[in-house]
């Protein structure tokens, strides 16, 4: 995970691999701190992700609520991952592609 802040002020965070409960426990502290500090929009890039757990969905809800007004979106989710967001009622987070 290498957060980057481009000139437009959007915090873009790419994720890789399997975002299961154990992995989310490892990254949660750092990720929540970066999201809390972000001043503008937030984007999670899931291009390299093949599994998301409910622990990751919690982090997405946190990011959505922190980015109020500026926008939070998920990009590059696979069809299988998109299905998880739809079931959880979080499909509003998915960027229309």
């Amino acid at each position, binding site marked *: 995970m290498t957060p980057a802040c481009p000139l437009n002020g959007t915090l873009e965070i790419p994720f890789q691999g*399997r975002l*299961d*409960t*154990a992995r989310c*426990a490892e990254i949660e502290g750092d990720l929540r701190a970066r999201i809390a500090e972000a001043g503008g929009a937030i984007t999670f890039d899931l291009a390299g992700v093949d*599994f998301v*757990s*409910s*622990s990751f*969905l*919690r982090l997405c*809800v*946190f990011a*959505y*609520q922190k980015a*109020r007004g500026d926008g939070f979106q998920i990009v590059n989710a696979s069809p*299988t991952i998109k*299905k*998880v967001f739809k*079931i*959880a*009622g*979080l499909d*509003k*987070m998915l960027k229309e592609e």
Partner: protein
Amino acid sequence: MPETFSLAIQGSLAELARLNSAVDAFLTGKKLSPDTVHAVEVAIEELAANTIAWGRDDQAAPRIEVHLTVEPSRIRVVIEDDGREFDPRAVPPPDLRVPLQRRREGGLGIPLVLAMVDQIGYRRAEGRNIMEMSIGL
């Protein structure tokens, strides 16, 4: 002959990672759709993680057993644990009428499982939770 898989872990997130790797290795190469494999993995991940987090009143790690059977038209998933009584079917789905801005973060794991499996049964026997699920191929 159906193909079967069984593994027991002493519940911790490190052990859950070992279980996930073993399940993934078992399912790989079985010509299953990505959605089927994903549904099996979500069910194991969420139910086991829930048991590890909430299953015991004492400090002991719960024992969790997973049994998979690949049949011609479905996969049967049986998960047993020795944690406190917990019927996943009683967990309510999230209230999707609540705007995302006020939605609570948690409570999504078990509803995900309930939505992704085709059937789920539960019984309590000899101090154990036994959850039997079926996922169509």
